[in-house]
């Protein structure tokens, strides 16, 4: 099917949220996206890039702080009735049976009596759930629950199917099975669904489903790049063209997730690089794994697959190791540096010393150490948090602070007193 006219459009959309601690996070900044008829669009990117936020905006579930959403050229006012949504957590009402859950959207659309029973039966039949009509969701497996989710969406014969990581909570086997069924539903004219927007975490899933893949960058969320995928349906995951498309998407994602270091920031001394929010054990685990590989190197996506970590988390760990000078990342290759090898050969105490030396040179830690010295060896959490909020308005300050404490404690640079809510300098 070839894409037709523009169906649903986001124009220069910006969205902000207020966190419980008062910090205002910008989730999306100036995002424009047009979804055409007969098209499947996948939204991919690191967590916190606002792709789910955009999906909720497209559904009319939230209003943007700035910008406009249009359905067939008309401004979107309230929930988009032409769309249905499938959720990662299924979002089924536990006190309703499968049939009642599927019928959720019908009554308000004026479908009653026999017509409603027909619609429910048809939707249940489409996803292969016949016989389960009177079951309660808690009696079903995850895959079955998501089938109910699909049936509920299909029952209202939506033009647009919006899916928020629909296979994210399922085991790989079930996910694969449901994925091909989703493509089947889209291609089947009987369902009425002609357009799909799917938020996903999996590169293969995006390539399998979508005709157009939109890659988001974070801090704040923005569109980095779009990739058109013209592989014919049904797609074969083992084919060479499929693999090639996956590799291309990997390359784009790597450029987003592991950007090449910027040229010397001498011009703007007040800009601090944030420290990747990863645990000490994750970084040493990565180095350990690299040691077992020939030449101590490997592509980031392969590493994430081998270690069973999703690519988004993997690249955060790689960024952390890179900030400490233990790996370099030429392209999508992660390469253990001599310093990285050295540190893995050390005993615990020496490793802590080396980490301490590295961390003290990191601008963010250097700044906190300076604050500590200024405060005669102790500084209140509040003060550091306020500082972090100013320097990194797009990162939840609490979580970055937790990372800083963990690394600081590990390297015995400073300690944290949770009762007094203060950081204290450790003098060695």
């Amino acid at each position, binding site marked *: 099917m070839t894409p037709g006219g523009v169906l649903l459009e986001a124009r220069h959309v910006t969205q902000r949220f207020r966190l419980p601690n008062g910090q205002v996070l910008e989730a999306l900044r100036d995002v424009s996206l047009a979804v055409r008829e007969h098209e499947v669009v996948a939204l991919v990117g690191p967590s916190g890039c606002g792709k789910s936020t955009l999906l909720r905006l497209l559904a009319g*579930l939230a209003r943007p702080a700035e910008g406009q959403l249009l359905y067939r050229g008309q401004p979107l006012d309230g929930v*988009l009735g*032409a769309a249905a*949504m499938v959720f*990662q957590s299924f979002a089924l*009402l*536990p*006190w309703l049976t499968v049939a009642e859950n599927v019928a959720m959207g019908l009554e308000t*659309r004026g479908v009653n009596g026999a017509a409603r029973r027909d619609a429910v039966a048809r939707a249940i039949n489409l996803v292969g759930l016949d016989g389960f009509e009177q079951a309660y969701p808690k009696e079903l497996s995850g895959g079955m629950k998501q089938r109910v989710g699909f049936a509920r969406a299909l029952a209202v014969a939506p033009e647009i199917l919006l899916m928020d990581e629909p296979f994210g909570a399922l085991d790989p086997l079930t996910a694969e099975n449901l994925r091909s069924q989703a493509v089947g539903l889209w291609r089947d004219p009987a369902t009425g669904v002609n357009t799909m927007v799917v938020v996903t975490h999996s590169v293969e899933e995006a390539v399998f489903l979508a005709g157009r893949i939109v890659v988001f960058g974070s801090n704040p969320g923005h569109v980095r790049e779009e990739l058109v995928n013209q592989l014919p349906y049904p797609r074969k995951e083992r084919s060479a063209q499929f693999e090639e498309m996956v590799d291309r998407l990997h390359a784009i994602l790597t450029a987003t997730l592991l950007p090449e270091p910027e040229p010397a920031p001498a011009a703007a001394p007040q800009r601090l690089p944030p420290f990747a929010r990863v645990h000490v054990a994750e970084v040493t685990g990565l180095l350990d794994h690299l040691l077992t590989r020939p030449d101590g190197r490997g592509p980031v996506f392969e590493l994430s697959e081998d270690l069973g970590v999703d690519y988004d988390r993997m690249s955060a760990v790689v960024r952390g190791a890179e900030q400490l000078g233990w790996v370099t990342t030429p392209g999508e290759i992660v390469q253990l540096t001599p310093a990285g090898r050295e540190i893995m050969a050390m005993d615990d105490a020496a490793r802590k010393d080396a980490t301490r030396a590295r961390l003290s040179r990191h601008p963010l830690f250097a700044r906190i150490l300076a604050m500590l010295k200024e405060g005669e060896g102790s500084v209140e959490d509040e003060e550091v948090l306020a500082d972090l909020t100013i320097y990194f308005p797009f990162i939840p300050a609490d979580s970055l602070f937790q990372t800083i404490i963990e690394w600081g404690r590990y390297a015995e640079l400073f300690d944290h007193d949770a009762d007094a809510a203060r950081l204290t300098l450790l003098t060695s």
Partner: protein
Amino acid sequence: MALKPLRLPLALTPPPLRRLGLADVVVLCLLCGAIATVVAFAREFQAPFLQAVRIDVSPVALPKYTLFSLSRGVIALLISYLFALAFGWTAAKFPVAERLLLPMLDILQSIPVLGFLPGLVLGLMSLFPARNVGLELAAILMIFTAQAWNLAFSFYNSLKSLPEPLRDASRMAGWRSSRTFWRLELPAAAQGLVWNGMLSMAGGWFFLMVNEAFRLGERDYRLPGIGSYMSVALDRGNAQAVGLAIVAMVVMIVSVDQLLWRPLVVWVEKFRLDDTASGVVPGSWVLEFLRRARLPRGAAALQRSAYRTAVRATEPPQRPFRAARPLMVNAPRLAFGNPIARKLGVGVLVAGLAVAAGLGVWHLYLLLRQLGPSDWATLASSAGLTFVRVMGSVALATAWALPAGVVIGRSPRLAQLMQPVIQVVASFPAPMLFPLVIIALERVGLRLGVGAVALMVLSGQWYILFNVISAVAAIPEQLKEAVTVFRLSSLARWRSLYLPAAFPALATGWVTAAGGAWNGSIVAEYMQVGGALRATRGLGSLISEATAHANFALLAGGITIMSVIVVGWNRLVWRPLASWAQTRFQVGQ
């Protein structure tokens, strides 16, 4: 087999600590207004009230009185549910309302409402001088004030913690607010509402007994009910009738538990949101019976088909399925959708509240101005005495309930065995026993000045016991195994595991126990036992006495001081302590 921990009303866990804000000031001002209004009402009281209903102490009359009491409790509970739904919904939907209503609820649930009882009774009596309506209203209103707050908190919390995807799903389905309320919000809150209703009912009996047996000085405001039956039986020294009244109360509590709460608790398991099974699902023979019975099912089917016919009759003719798809489902519009109208509405509301608050403060000031320095000195010293009693009662209750709670809570078998017993015993209204306890204490030579402490223990101890049991029962099995594996001595086990793990729950239990003790002081320090008045110095007796002698300025002063002490102590001591304990000793984060 994992034991389902005893559940506590959500209101028992401290809400996040807030700084005193403008809303609190408004609420406190409105509270002043309420005090002034109740006192003003009482002032209207003129004619001596006709002698209240005659109570028949023959055993034959007892079932009738028991039913009277039961219906008061049930009516009040129904009103409390309505209030809770309206309140929780409003607070969860409108941020402006939330900012005002939450502190209000917070204060309302901590002020000693019994302090308002004498004024309220007198006031409502004057509205309906010839009949018992005023008394009945006062009784129901008092029970309501004991039942409503935790229900409202529970519903509000359920609404606030409803998972976002479920809300999204119902909005994508095009559900309007009324449908969302009935099909999503109310079912999701059902569990909390039932469990809290059970606790509310128990709290309500306490107030009902006080109300039914209410006397002030020479005046008798008793209502026909099990509480007044008991008090008349005591007056006449009729031991048989006293025993029968206690039996009737226990029978009533057990039947309500078995016939109403048990089936409801089992039934609402259906509305559990999380997938985790709750360990042992309680059984209910009544629900089993109803499920097996044909008649209710037939009635339900009939009702359903009647509903369907009615819906069909009002519907336009069927349209084909495909054409039924609307282009756009508009967002539900509220009457105040227009921003100007909304601002105007909020403005009027705020202005109205400000005027009411201002008037309240002014009237209270006019009343309090009449008090001389000696009155204030009396108030202060009485408040000090009662404060010492309250703290003493909390300490005494802790002394027995903490070890008992740990022992019961750490053994699943014992907890399962004791749970129903404790529930019934805890539901038993302590004021019914007050006179008996006083007589017993006098036999061993303890005067009311000390004896009142024992009575206040009775009013507050269960909160501590329940909280400790549920906290200890919730300790992860692995932690218990760890202390066994490392062969800690039993002293070390208590010190390093059970006491720290129980501490957060203990601290929240103290908040409620102290509240119960303050309430109890109003009854305990000034009561009629066997025809004679027993009174001891204290804030509680001061309030009762001021009402009896129509000293309205002193009454207003007493209520104000008690409210200020309780609310202030909660804000400045209990809450910070509880939230500190929560962050420091929370097991398993």
